[in-house]
C-alpha cells in the first residue's frame, strides 16, 4: 500500500492536515471549506482548469491562482476570499451566466445545481445586468429515452465527456469545435439517440448543472 505523507496547511486562518501532493481544491472541499468549481475532476492528473472559478490567494504568489492546479505543500497559507479573488470569481461567474439559459423553476437541476450553490455561497446574482445575453438558440435534445440534453444550459465543464471516456468507456460524446462554437456533442453533432451512446446515464450524473437531466418517470 502506498503510504501518503501528510502536510499541514492553513486555509482562512485555520490549520488542516492534508495529503501531500493532493490538489488544494480537493483538500479544501474534503475539509468542508467551499471553493466554487465546475470543471474539476479529482482523479484527473492534468486538471482542465477551464471554468476559472476556484481562484484563491496563496502566500508567495503574486496573483490569485486556481485551487484545482495547486498541489498542497507543507506550510502553505491559503485565503479563499479576498477583494481580488471575489472580483475574478464574480466576473467568471457573470460571464458563465451570460451564456446560460435561466429559468430554474423549469430546470431539472433546480435545487442541486452548482451554479445556484455558487451564487448562494458567494452572494452572487444569477442574472447579470451589465453583460449581454449570449445564450444560443438551440432546441433541447429529447431523443434519448432516459435523459435530455439542453445545450443552452451547458457550462462546458467537460465532466460528462470525461466520465464517458474514462468511466463508461463509450466515447459517444466529446467537446467539439472551438471558441464560442465549442460544445458538447456526438460524432457529426447528431441527436444523442442516433449516436453510439448506450444511455448508461453516467454523464447525466456527472453534470453539475441542468444541461443533462434525467427524464421524469
Amino acid at each position, binding site marked *: 500500500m502506498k503510504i501518503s505523507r501528510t502536510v499541514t496547511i492553513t486555509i482562512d486562518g485555520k490549520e488542516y492536515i492534508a495529503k501531500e501532493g493532493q490538489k488544494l481544491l480537493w483538500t479544501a472541499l474534503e475539509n468542508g471549506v467551499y471553493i466554487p468549481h465546475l470543471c474539476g475532476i479529482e482523479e484527473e492528473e*492534468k486538471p482542465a482548469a477551464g471554468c*476559472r472559478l476556484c481562484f484563491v490567494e496563496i502566500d508567495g504568489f503574486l496573483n490569485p491562482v486556481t485551487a484545482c*492546479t495547486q498541489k498542497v505543500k507543507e506550510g502553505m497559507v491559503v485565503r479563499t476570499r479576498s477583494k481580488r479573488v471575489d472580483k475574478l470569481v464574480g466576473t*467568471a461567474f457573470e460571464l458563465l451566466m451570460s451564456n446560460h439559459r435561466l429559468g430554474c423553476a423549469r430546470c431539472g437541476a433546480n435545487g442541486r445545481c452548482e451554479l445556484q450553490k455558487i451564487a448562494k455561497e458567494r452572494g452572487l446574482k444569477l442574472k447579470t445586468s451589465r453583460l449581454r445575453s*449570449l445564450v444560443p438558440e438551440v432546441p433541447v435534445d429529447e431523443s434519448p429515452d432516459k435523459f435530455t440534453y439542453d445545450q443552452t444550459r451547458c457550462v*462546458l465543464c467537460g465532466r460528462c465527456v470525461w466520465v464517458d471516456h474514462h468511466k463508461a468507456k463509450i466515447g459517444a460524446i466529446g467537446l467539439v469545435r*472551438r471558441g*464560442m462554437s465549442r460544445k458538447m456533442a456526438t460524432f457529426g453533432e447528431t441527436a444523442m439517440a442516433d449516436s453510439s451512446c448506450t444511455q448508461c446515464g453516467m454523464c447525466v450524473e456527472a453534470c453539475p448543472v441542468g444541461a443533462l437531466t434525467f427524464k421524469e418517470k
Partner: protein
Amino acid sequence: MSNPAVEKMYRELRDKAVSKAEGMNEKPYVMVGTATCGRAAGAMKILETFRDELAGHQVDAELLEVGCLGHCYAEPMVAVYKPGHPFLCYGNVDEGIASRLVSDFLVGDDPCFEFAMAAFEPNDVFPTFADYPRGVYEQKIILADCGLINPEDIDHYIARDGYLALAKVLDMDPGAVVEEIKESRLRGRGGAGFPAGKKWEICLKAEEPVKYVICNADEGDPGAFMDRALLESNPHQLIEGLAIAAYAVGASQGYIYVRAEYPLAIKRLHTALDQARDKGLIGESVLGSDFKFDIQIFQGSGAFVCGEETALISSIEGNPGIPGHRPPFPAVSGLRGKPTIINNVKTLSYVPHVIRNGAAWFRGIGTPNSPGTAVFALAGKVVNTGLVEVPMGTSLRTLVYDVGNGIKEEKAFKAVQIGGPSGGCLPESALDLEIDFDSLQHAGAMMGSGGLVVLDEEDCMVEIARFFLEFTQKESCGKCTFCRLGTKQMLEILTDITKGRGKPEALELLWDLAEDIKTGSLCALGKTAPNPVLSTLRFFRGEYEAHINEGCCPSLMCNELISYRIVPEKCSKLCDACIASCPVEAVYTRPDMLKAVDLEKCVKCNNCLVTCKPLYDAVMKVTPPETGEGGDEN
C-alpha cells in the same frame, strides 16, 4: 574530449562547398527572389523570362532561386552578378527589365544602373545598401544571408561557415553549450522574451533519458511573416540551431511545427533536411560523432492558439490544440510527458551565430537586458515595407522614418501597432521609445512575434482594437471562461461602438472586463487578448468618445459612421467612371449632369472614391453619415 573525426569531416564538407562557391564566381549568375512575397509580386514570371532570355541569347549563366531580401516594397527583386562588375540588386523588376538585363548587361556590358537599387559590396560606381538610411540603421544577423543563398542548396550555407557552430559544440560539454547561451542572454523571440538559456538549463537538468526539441514555426500573428521568410530563405540556419539545442539538452529527436499554410516553407525545409541528412549533419551519427539526432516536420492545421507551448504539444499528440495549465512547464514535462524545449524560429536562428562568435559578441549588440537584434515585419502605412533587422534599443522613430522611410502619401503618423493580437498601439509620444522586450511591455505593447504595423490618420483606433479582438476571439480555443466569453463580450461592445451604438458606460465595462481577462485567463492568448483594447483606450480615448458621443469616426474608417458625397465643385460632369465602378448602381447622374450617390443604395464599397481619386478627387467621405438623398442638394 576533442574529436578530430568531426573536425576532419566538417573541413571536407566546407572545402568542397567553398570551392564550389568560388567556381560560381567565375561566370555570371542571376538570382531571383522566389519566396512567397516575391511570387505574389510575379517572381515566377520573371524567373521564366530570365530562363527564356538566357537560352535565347545563349548566355552561359547560372539562374538561381533565392529567398527574401526583406525589401518587400520592391518585389520582385533580382540580383545579377557578372565578373568585372559590382554585384547589383534590382527592384520592381518586370519582364521588360528582365530581358534588358540579359541583353544589355549579360550579353552587352551595360549594368543598367537605371534599374538598379543598390550594390551588395562597396565599389566605385554604384552605392550599396549601407549607403541608404535603412542600411545605416540595420544590422543583420539572422537575415544576413537571406536572399543571397540558394535555400535548396546546402553548400551555399556551408560555404558561409554554415554548420561550423554545430561542429564546434560537438567538441564541447553540453553544459558548456547551455552556459554559453545563458551568458549571451539570448531571449526567446516568440513573444514574452523568456531567456533561452534558462529554458535549456531546466531541460538539461531534467533526469530523463528521452527528451525533445521543437521549433515553433506556427507563425499565426495576422501581420507578421518573418518566420516564413527565414524558413524559405535560410532553412539550414534554423536546422543547425535546433541541432545545437538538441545536443545541449540531450535530445535525439526534434520537430519543426510549421503552419500548413506555408507550403513553400515546408517544401524547402524538406529539401534542406534531406540534404543535411545526406551530408551526415543530422542523423545516426552527426558529423561522425556519437551524437544522434533527427528532425521531423509537423504541419500545424491552422490554429493561432497552437503558438502556445502546451497547445502545440497537444496538437502533435493528435488532439485539439487546447492549452493546459503550467506548471509543469514543457522543459520539465512536455511532449509525451518528456522534457521538451520549444523555441521560436528566430530564437533558434540566432543560436549558430552566438556559438560561432561567442556570448560576449552577442551581448555587445542591443541593450543590456535584451541583447542582439530585433526582426520586425514592417507593414501598414509605411513607405518601405518589409523585413528589417535592427539592434535592440533602436527608437521607433528611427524604425518608422529612417528604416521605413516615413509614412505613405505624406499622411500624418498616428500610431504603431506592435506585437499583433497580443501587443498594443503606441502613439506619437512614444516614438522616441528605445525598443526592447522590457520597454515595450512597460509602454503597454509587446514584442510579440515582431509584427509592426504603422497606422496613419485614416486608421480608426477603435476599429484596430476591434479587429485584433475579433481575431483572438475567433482563435480562442474556448476552454476557459474568460477567454471564450470575456473576449466575446468585449467584442460585442466594441462592435457596437464602431457601429455608433455604443453607450457612454461601455468604456468602463470594457476596461473592467479587460483587466479581469488579463488576470483570469488560463493561457497567454487570453491573458494578452485585451492588450490592443487597453492600449488604445489609454492613448486614444478621444476616438472612442467621438464614436459614442457624437456618432462619428474621426478617421473615416467605420462604415456605419460615414457616408459618401460627391463634391460638385470637383466633379467633371462628363466623366462616368464613378458610375461604372459602382456595383449596386448607387451612383447616378443628376439632371444638371453632376454625379451623386444614392445613400439608400450605397454599400460603401469605396469603389467610386478609389476610381475618382486620380481623376478629379471629387468623392469624399463624411462623418457623421448623411441620411436620405445625400448629394442631391437641389
